């Protein structure tokens, strides 16, 4: 092909205070190619993309586009050089129309709606999308929003497209649609970078795979020539730990009973029991009411009907617990870590002590030394990789943040541990560790209620799975019965 876009990343390094995020990166890419960029959290994928997108400046090195050295100092520069950045969570103005969002960076003075609607239609049409240019972005499902974001990148002349974990919150159908669009864009000569945690996505979609670790390119090669084991090994620089397959376990006493739990339509009269040391999985698609069930049990959302009973090991057996007191006996790892899972600007020990303050009250006042000591102990126990417990939460990778959140609840010694998406946005290494941790907790007698959108995870973790569909329990499977197709067939 002639006049093909080409991108050359030459000796790029990036140093943040105390961390070398990128170390002498060299990558050549050209139009008509899809490059999969993978690596654990903290490997430098996002930093590299942010440099191309004009958000960070490299400490060293050069970027050449079509053979000419360029300096990308701002997202506007990136746009000028034809670099389009499609974010994990689409960054858009929800109250503006699709067309306005697509043409946003070119809007000046009086807006010619006819013109921008035509532009929007043209680029959405290129991707075979039937999204109306006049719809409000906020009313679109997340998959369609991503399409709008791609259209925005294309309409500003995007030739080099960076996709940063675009499928994280997608349904399977939305994902296939996105892949189709990406393949089309490749045919039209775009140069595409695709970042993902999911190896199968990279295998399915990309032509070339680049694995980053500790800010360096560790392997690069044609996707079809590299094996999955090779990728995994290079990503984490060691062997992958697996969650052990155990014998069938037996349980005696019921620790929690949920009865007719109802919050509007999600969940709708949900009842189940968890026994001591059991991991109960809740499986269902998005919108099945999984998260809503946990929130209701934990007393965050107001419950219309139903009750929760707990055995507090005080010899009285199951007792009805009022919803406002349940948080005293349970831990709850939320689905959205940064939204409601932790205090990002706070240090690790402050985060870990936050839900456990009552335990540190000495007479009238709080004992901070004890909080720090206990936090150190738990950070070590859970293998949190951080300089110290005085480090800020925001400086940690997703996997380590998740471990800190697990730790803060373990310090509380919960009767029942509610865990929503234990390993979302967590790298492969930490993922296996967290999964092993949950199994171990269960073996030690803590009952765990786990929600996950990954079939592999739910089947590896659970002793029993209940299947939710539109807020209603559709079935229950024991560990031996758990199989991909039964899970899928029950939830759709």
């Amino acid at each position: 092909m002639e006049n093909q876009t080409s991108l050359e990343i030459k000796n790029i390094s990036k140093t943040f205070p105390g961390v070398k995020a990128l170390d002498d990166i060299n990558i050549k890419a050209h139009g008509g190619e899809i490059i999969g960029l993978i690596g654990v959290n903290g490997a430098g994928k996002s930093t590299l993309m942010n440099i191309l997108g004009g958000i960070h400046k490299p400490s060293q090195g050069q970027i050449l586009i079509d053979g000419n050295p360029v300096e990308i100092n701002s997202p506007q520069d990136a746009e000028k050089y034809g670099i389009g950045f499609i974010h994990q969570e689409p960054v858009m103005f929800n109250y503006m129309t699709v067309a306005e969002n697509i043409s946003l960076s070119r809007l000046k003075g009086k807006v010619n709606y006819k013109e921008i609607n035509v532009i929007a239609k043209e680029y959405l049409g290129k991707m075979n999308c039937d999204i109306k240019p006049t719809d409000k972005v906020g009313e679109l499902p997340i998959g369609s929003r991503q399409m709008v974001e791609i259209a925005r990148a294309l309409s500003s002349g995007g030739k080099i497209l960076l996709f940063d974990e675009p499928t994280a919150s997608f349904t399977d159908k939305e994902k296939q649609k996105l892949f189709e669009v990406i393949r089309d864009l490749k045919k039209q000569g775009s140069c595409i970078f695709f970042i993902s945690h999911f190896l199968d996505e990279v295998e399915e979609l990309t032509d070339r795979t680049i694995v980053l670790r500790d800010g360096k390119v560790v392997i690069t090669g044609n996707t079809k020539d590299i094996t999955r084991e090779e990728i995994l090994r290079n990503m984490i620089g060691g062997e992958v730990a697996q969650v052990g397959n155990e014998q069938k376990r037996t349980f005696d006493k019921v620790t929690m009973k949920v009865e007719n739990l109802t919050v509007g339509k999600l969940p709708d009269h949900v009842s189940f029991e968890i026994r001591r040391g059991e991991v109960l999985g809740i499986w269902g698609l998005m919108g099945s009411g999984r998260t809503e069930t946990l929130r209701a049990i934990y007393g965050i959302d107001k419950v219309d009907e139903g009750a929760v009973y707990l055995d507090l090991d005080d010899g009285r057996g199951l007792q009805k617990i009022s919803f406002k007191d349940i948080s005293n006996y349970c831990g709850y790892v939320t689905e959205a870590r940064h939204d409601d899972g932790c205090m990002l600007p706070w240090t690790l020990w402050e985060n870990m002590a936050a839900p456990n303050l009552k335990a540190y009250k000495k007479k009238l006042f709080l004992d901070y030394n004890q909080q720090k000591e206990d936090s150190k102990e738990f950070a070590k126990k859970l293998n949190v990789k951080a300089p110290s417990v005085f480090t800020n939460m925001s400086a940690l990778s997703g996997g380590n943040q998740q471990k800190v959140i697990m730790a803060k609840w373990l310090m509380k010694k919960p009767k029942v541990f509610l865990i929503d998406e234990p390993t979302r946005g967590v790298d492969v290494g930490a993922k296996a560790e967290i999964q092993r941790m949950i199994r171990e907790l269960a073996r030690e007698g803590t009952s765990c209620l786990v929600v996950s959108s990954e079939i592999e995870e739910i089947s590896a973790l659970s002793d029993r799975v209940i299947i939710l569909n539109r807020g209603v329990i559709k079935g229950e499977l024991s560990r031996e019965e758990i199989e991909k197709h039964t899970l899928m067939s029950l939830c759709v």
Partner: protein
Amino acid sequence: MVVNKNQTTAGKQTGFALLKNGNVVMGLVTIAAFVVLSVIIPQFLTVGNIFNLLVQASSIGIPAIGLTFIIITAGIDLSLPTTMAVSAILGCAIMAKTQSTFLGVVSILAIAMFIGAINGISVSKLKMVPMIVTLAVSTVNIGISNYYTQGKSVSGLPKSFSSVFAGSIGGVLPISVLVFALVAVVMHILLTKTIFGRQLFQTGVNEKAARVNGVNTTKIIFLIYFIGGCMAGINGILTAARLNSAGPTMGPQSAFNNIVCACVLGGASVWGGKGTILGTVFGSIVMALITNVMNLMNIDFFVTYVIKGLVIIAVCYLDVLRNRVKGSR
């Protein structure tokens, strides 16, 4: 494990590092100002003037301590000065009628706490926007104050009222300064050493996460507005005693400017999650200092408004700077 004393990202910000510690900056500014002023203005460094300054600082500082709690949750209470006025007016009316200092003082406190509770319920339980609710409450306060007094002052208070609450210990240490110090110490301990304090900060940093952590954020938010009202009441008692009367002009808008300025100058961030009592105390002294110096220099009253307005703008920018240093970009 390595213990990293600098709790935020390591090194390289030494210039800004001091700026980040509001108390250090405020302490230095205050001391420098004292030194410079005592050299250039002869009547500045006299015992009389210094205590006069501290009395002024206490009438800014007591409500500012209440506002610090509120600002930590990213809230605001615009009604503090007018709550002080209306509670002092109604309480003094009771005091004048009954000639009972005790009954009067209790009434002032009770009325101020009641208004604080209204603010608290509106913001916490009913989820109203703090700025609008407290502005509305403030408007009601102004209305009641002026309607009841018809613009005049309530006087005829028992002698014991001003002799106790506007008096001094040993003829040197004014009661209001003592109360200011006591309030500051108690509130400092409440904020830094108790479960309530930690839960308040959690609510300010991330309310949703605080709820998951088991914090009853509704209760916390209610309590801080209630405490705010309480502080307005204490200030109302001290101010009315000093004036030996109570009138609608006790709580003007400019008083609020001083209060919020003291908080932000002291390192409380209007974005929430940050604030210290020590900083607010320094902030109040600096604000009193500005007023005091402008008095001594015979600067026109309305020019002082312009200067204070500019100080607020500067302080708001300082807040942005601090948070930019602390934030990611």
